[in-house]
C-alpha cells in the first residue's frame, strides 16, 4: 500500500487559514503577557483585521473560482459559490461581533476579569479592581469563526464532526465568561456543554451508521451508495436521522433547543450575539450541504421528520417567546422560531431554497447582532451610581424611546425585521423562504409558518409599544441608563442601515444569493 499525498488547493482555504493563523498569533500575544491595555488593543486589531481579511479573500475567490467550484481536499472539502457566500457572511458577522466584544462600558468589558476566580470571591474583586482582563476571548472567538467558515465547505461526515467540535469548544468557554451574573453564566456554559456533548455523541453514532451502510464518510460516495447497496438503506437512513439531530442541535431546533434560552441568557451579550448570528448561519450552511449533497435521495423519507421539526420549532419558539419577561430570553426563543422559519425553506429540496436560506440568515443575523448590541447598552444603575449589569427585564425597557431615541428606533427596526414587516430585510427573507417551500408543494408548512409569523408580531410589537408609548416608570427613572459606546453604536448603525437597505432594495443581494445557489458535489 502506497500513500499518495493529497493535493490541496490552498487558495480557497486562505480565508480559513487567515483566521486560524490570527487565532494562534493571538495566543502567542497572550504568551508574551504584555500590559492589559496593549494586549487588548493588539487582540482587537488582530481579530478585526483577520475577520475582514477573511471576508475579503473569500469575496475575491468568487471571481477567481475555477468553474463553479474547487475540490480543496479531494472530495472531502469543496469550495463553491454557495460556501463562499456563507463564508463572507460569517466573517462579516464575526467582525461585527468582535466590535461588540471590544466594547467597554464604564471601563469594564463584558467578560470576567479572572475567569478562574470563584464568583463573588475575594480574588475576583481584586482582579476587577486591578483591571485585569481575559483577552483570550478574541483568539477563542477566532478559532470558532475559522471552524464555522470551514464548516460551510465540508463534504465529509467525519471532518464535519471535527469541525463541529472546533466550533463548539471555544463557545462553551466563551459562554462561561460573563462579567456580571457569573453563576448564571457558568451554569449556562455547563448546560450548553453537557447538551452539546450529548448531541455530538448522537451525531457520531449517526455518522458511524452511515459509514456502516455506505462504507464511506464522503458525501459524494454516500449519495451514490444509497442507490448502489440494496439492503443497507435502512442503516444509512437511521444514520442520517441521527446525524441530522447533531446539526439541528446547533440550529436550536425543537426538541433539541432546550439549551438555547439558558445559554443565550447566561452568556455575555456579545457572545450571545455572535452565537445567535454566526453559529446559526454556519449550522444552516452545513445542514444544507449534508441534506442536499449526501442524502437528498432520502428526500421523501426524511421530509416528515423535517416537517415535524420545523413546525414544532416555529410553534414552540413563538409561543414560548410570548410569555418571556426577559429581553434576552425572549430574543433566544425568537431565534429558535427563526430557526424553524429557515427550516421551512430548507425542507423544500429546491435550488431556490439555497438562495432563500442565505438571504434569510443574512437578514436574521444582522438584526440579531443589532438587537443584542442594543441589549448590551441598556444598563442598570447600582446604588452607588455606577453602571451595573444589563437591564434585561422587559419592564426596565419602558420608555426607552425617551431615554435614547436612536437606540430605541434602531431596536424597533430590528424587531420589525424579526417580525417580517415590509420594507425591512426580514420581510423579504420570509417571503423568499416561504415561497421556496410553497413552490415545492409545502403549503401546509407555509400556512403554519405564516400563522406563527403573525403571532410573533405580537411580542415584537409589544416591546416597541413598551419603548415608545409607555412612560418611564417613576421608580426606574434613575435606575436604568442607556450608554452609547462607540463599538456597539457602530454595530447598531451598520446593522440597522443594512436591515432597511436589504428591505428596500433587496435585488443586489438576492441576485448574488441566486448566483450562489450552486452546490458542487
Amino acid at each position: 500500500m502506497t500513500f499518495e499525498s493529497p493535493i490541496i488547493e490552498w487558495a480557497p482555504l486562505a480565508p480559513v487559514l487567515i483566521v486560524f493563523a490570527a487565532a494562534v498569533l493571538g495566543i502567542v500575544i497572550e504568551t508574551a503577557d504584555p500590559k492589559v491595555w496593549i494586549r487588548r488593543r493588539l487582540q482587537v486589531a488582530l481579530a478585526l483585521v483577520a475577520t475582514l481579511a477573511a471576508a475579503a479573500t473569500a469575496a475575491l475567490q468568487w471571481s477567481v473560482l475555477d468553474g463553479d467550484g474547487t475540490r480543496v481536499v479531494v472530495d472531502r472539502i469543496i469550495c463553491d459559490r454557495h460556501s463562499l457566500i456563507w463564508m463572507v457572511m460569517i466573517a462579516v458577522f464575526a467582525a461585527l461581533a468582535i466590535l461588540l466584544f471590544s466594547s467597554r462600558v464604564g471601563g469594564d468589558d463584558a467578560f470576567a476579569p479572572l475567569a478562574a476566580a470563584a464568583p463573588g470571591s475575594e480574588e475576583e474583586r481584586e482582579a476587577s479592581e486591578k483591571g485585569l482582563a481575559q483577552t483570550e476571548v478574541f483568539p477563542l472567538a477566532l478559532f470558532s469563526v475559522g471552524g464555522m467558515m470551514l464548516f460551510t465547505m465540508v463534504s465529509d461526515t467525519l471532518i464535519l464532526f471535527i469541525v463541529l467540535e472546533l466550533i463548539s469548544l471555544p463557545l462553551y468557554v466563551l459562554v462561561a465568561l460573563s462579567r456580571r451574573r457569573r453563576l448564571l453564566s457558568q451554569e449556562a456554559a455547563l448546560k450548553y456543554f453537557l447538551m452539546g456533548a450529548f448531541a455530538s455523541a448522537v451525531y457520531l453514532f449517526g455518522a458511524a451508521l452511515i459509514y456502516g451502510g455506505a462504507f464511506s464518510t464522503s458525501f459524494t460516495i454516500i449519495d451514490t451508495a444509497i442507490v448502489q447497496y440494496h439492503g443497507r438503506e435502512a442503516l444509512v437512513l437511521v444514520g442520517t436521522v441521527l446525524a441530522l439531530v447533531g446539526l439541528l442541535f446547533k440550529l436550536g431546533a425543537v426538541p433539541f433547543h432546550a439549551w438555547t434560552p439558558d445559554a443565550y441568557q447566561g452568556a455575555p451579550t456579545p457572545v450571545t450575539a455572535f452565537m445567535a448570528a454566526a453559529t446559526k448561519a454556519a449550522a444552516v450552511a452545513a445542514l444544507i450541504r449534508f441534506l442536499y449533497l449526501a442524502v437528498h435521495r432520502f428526500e421523501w423519507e426524511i421530509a416528515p421528520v423535517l416537517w415535524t421539526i420545523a413546525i414544532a420549532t416555529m410553534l414552540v419558539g413563538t409561543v414560548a417567546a410570548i410569555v418571556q419577561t426577559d429581553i434576552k430570553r425572549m430574543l433566544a426563543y425568537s431565534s429558535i422560531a427563526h430557526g424553524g422559519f429557515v427550516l421551512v425553506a430548507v425542507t423544500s429540496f429546491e435550488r431556490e431554497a439555497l438562495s432563500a436560506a442565505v438571504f434569510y440568515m443574512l437578514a436574521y443575523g444582522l438584526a440579531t447582532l443589532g438587537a443584542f448590541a442594543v441589549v448590551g447598552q441598556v444598563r442598570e444603575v447600582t446604588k452607588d451610581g455606577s453602571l451595573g449589569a444589563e437591564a434585561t427585564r422587559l419592564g426596565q425597557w419602558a420608555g426607552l424611546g425617551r431615554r435614547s431615541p436612536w437606540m430605541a428606533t434602531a431596536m424597533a427596526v430590528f424587531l420589525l425585521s424579526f417580525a417580517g414587516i415590509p420594507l425591512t430585510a426580514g420581510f423579504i427573507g420570509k417571503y423568499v423562504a416561504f415561497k421556496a417551500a410553497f413552490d415545492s408543494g409545502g403549503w401546509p408548512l407555509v400556512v403554519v409558518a405564516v400563522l406563527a409569523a403573525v403571532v410573533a408580531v405580537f411580542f415584537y410589537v409589544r416591546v416597541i409599544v413598551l419603548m415608545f408609548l409607555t412612560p418611564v416608570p417613576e421608580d426606574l427613572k434613575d435606575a436604568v441608563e442607556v450608554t452609547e459606546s462607540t463599538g456597539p453604536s457602530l454595530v447598531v448603525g451598520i446593522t440597522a442601515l443594512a436591515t432597511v437597505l436589504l428591505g428596500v432594495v433587496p435585488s443586489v443581494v438576492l441576485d448574488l444569493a441566486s448566483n450562489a445557489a450552486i452546490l458542487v458535489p
Partner: protein
Amino acid sequence: MLSVTWLAIAAPLGSAAVLLLGGRRLDRWGHWLAVAASTTSAVVGVGVMADLLSRSDRAVQQHLFDWIPGGELEVSAGLLVDPLSVSFLLLVGVVGTLIHVYSVAYMEGDPRRRTFFAYLNLFVAAMLLLVLADSYLLLFVGWEGVGLASYLLIGFWNQNPPFASAANKAFVVNRIGDVGLVLALGLMFAHLGSVDFAGVFASAPTASEGVLTAIGLMLLLAACGKSAQFPLQSWLGDAMAGPTPVSALIHAATMVTAGVYLIVRSGPVYAGAPTALLLVAIVGAITLLFGAVVGMAKDDIKRVLAASTISQIGYMMLAAGLGPVGFAFAIFHLITHGFFKAGLFLGAGSVMHGMGDQVDMRRFGGLATLMKVTWVTMGLGWLAILGVPPFSGFWSKDRIIEVAFIGEGMKPWLLGGAALLGAGLTAYYMSRLFFMTFHGKGRWTEGQHPHEASALMTVPMIILAVGSAALGLIFAIGDSFVTWLEPVTGHVTHEDPVLAVPVIMTLTLVLVALGIGLAYRQYALLPVPETAPVASLAVQAARKDLYQDSVNSVLLEYPGQTLTRTLVFADAKVVDGAVNAVAAGTVGLGGLVRRLQAGRVRSYAAMMLVGVVVVLGIVILAINGKGWF
C-alpha cells in the same frame, strides 16, 4: 418635462435630507431652500401637464429601477403619469408651495423652523410618490411616508403632552387602515399575480367577484384610515394640534384625500365588486353627515374646519362610491376643496395669528373691519364651500348631489337625501364660523390687538381665494375637467337622476339659504355668549364628537390597556416578587434550587432523547412497507 417627472419627488426629498442633516448653519436660509424645492415640484407639474396635453396617449409609464426582481413577484419602481396623477401633482405642488411661503412667516420665531420645513418637504415628496407610483407597492411606500410626515408634524410641538398624544392617536388609527392596504396587497398578489396597476387592472376582469370584493373592502379600510372616514375618523380633530399650515396642507388639502385617490385609482377593481362600491358610498354618506353634525357644535375654529374636512371628504367618498359616474366629480371636488379648504385654514391661521393664538370662536367677533384681507379671502372660501353659484363648490358639490340621485330603488333617495341634507348643514356651520369670527360684537379677551398679517401670509391666501372663486367655473366650462380625466375614469353617459336636475338645484340652494339665514340670525344679529351655554343632549353629544372617543375606548382601548396593565402588573408583582422571594430565601432554598437545576439539565437531555426516538419513529413509519428492514 415628462422625462424629469422624478425630479418632482427628488427635489423635496433631497431638500428634506439637506435640511435635516445640515444642522444649524442652515437656520438662516433653509426655509427658502424648502420653498424652492416645493416650487420645483410645482413647475415640473405644470411642465408635465403641458407635455401630456400635447400627446394623444394620455398615460405614460416610466421605469425607474428594478426594485424586487426575480421569481413570481417582480416589482419595478416606476412612475405613472396620467391625468389623474398630474391633477394631484399640480394640486400638491401649487397648494404646497403657497403653504410653504405662508409658513415662512407663520413659523417665524419658532426655534425649530428648519426642522419644520424639512418635514414639510418630506411630506411633499412622499405625497407625490404616493400619487405618481405605478404600483400598489410603491404607493404603499408613499402612503407610509405621508403617514410618517403627518405624525411628525402633528406632534411638532411635542413639548405639549396632549399634542404628542394627538400625534400618537393619528399614528395608531392610521396603522389600522394600513393593515387594510397590506392585506389588499397580499390578496392582489395571491389572486391577481401582480401588484402593479397595469397587471392588477389587466387581470381584475377575470377574477372572481369574491376576491375583488375582498380587495375592495380592504382598500376601503385603508382609505377610511387615511381619509378620516367613518369609523376611523376620530384622529383628524385631534390632528389640529399641529401648526396651522400643516392642517391646511396635510389635514385638509392633500393627504387626507389620498383615500379618495386610492378608491378612484382602483376603479377597475371596484368595477367587479358592486357590493364593495356600495359600501364606499354608504361610508361616504354616513361620514358627511357625521362631520357636519359635529361641525355645528364645535367652538374651536380649527376643529370646525376639521369636522368640515371630514364631511367634505365624505362627499368625495360618496361620489367615488357611485362608480365611474362619480369618479370624475369626486376628483373635481377634491381639487376645488383642496383650494378653498386650504384657503379657509390659512385664514383661520391668520385670525389666530392676529388674536394671539386664540382658537375659541366665542372670543372672536367683529374682525371684519380689522382684518380686511382675511375677511375677504375667507369669505370667498366660505361661499365656495357653501356651493353658492358661481363659486367653485357650486360646480363640484352640486354635481355630486345630482349624481347621488341617480339609480334605482331606495338607494338614490337615501344617498341623495343625505347629500342634500349635508349641504344645508354645511351652510349652517360654515356660516356660523364666519359670522362668529368676523361679525357681531368683539368678544376679545383683554390685551388683544387684532391685526392683519404680513404679505408673506396674505399673498398665498389671496391666490388660494382666487382659486376658490374661479377654479370651479374654469373646470366646469364644457365639462373640461371631466373630459380631461376620462382616460382614467372612463367615459360614461349620464343617466337621469330620479328628480329633475333643476329641482335638485333649487332644493339645494333653498337649504343653503336657510342655513345661512339661521346662522346669521343666531350669530350675527343676536349676541353670542362668551362661554358655551348649557345645551340639549343632542348638542352636547355633537360637542363631544358624537362620543367617538368613548366608543373607541370601549371597543379598542380598554381591552388593549387592560392587557398591557396585566402584563406590567405581572411583571412588577409576580415576576419581581418571585425574584425577590428567591433572593431572600436563597440560603434556605439553595440546596433545593441546585437540585432543581441539576434536574433541569437532566430533563433537557431527556427531552432530547425523546426527540431522537420520536424522529426515528417518524422515519420508520415513513418507510414502512418498503421492506428495508
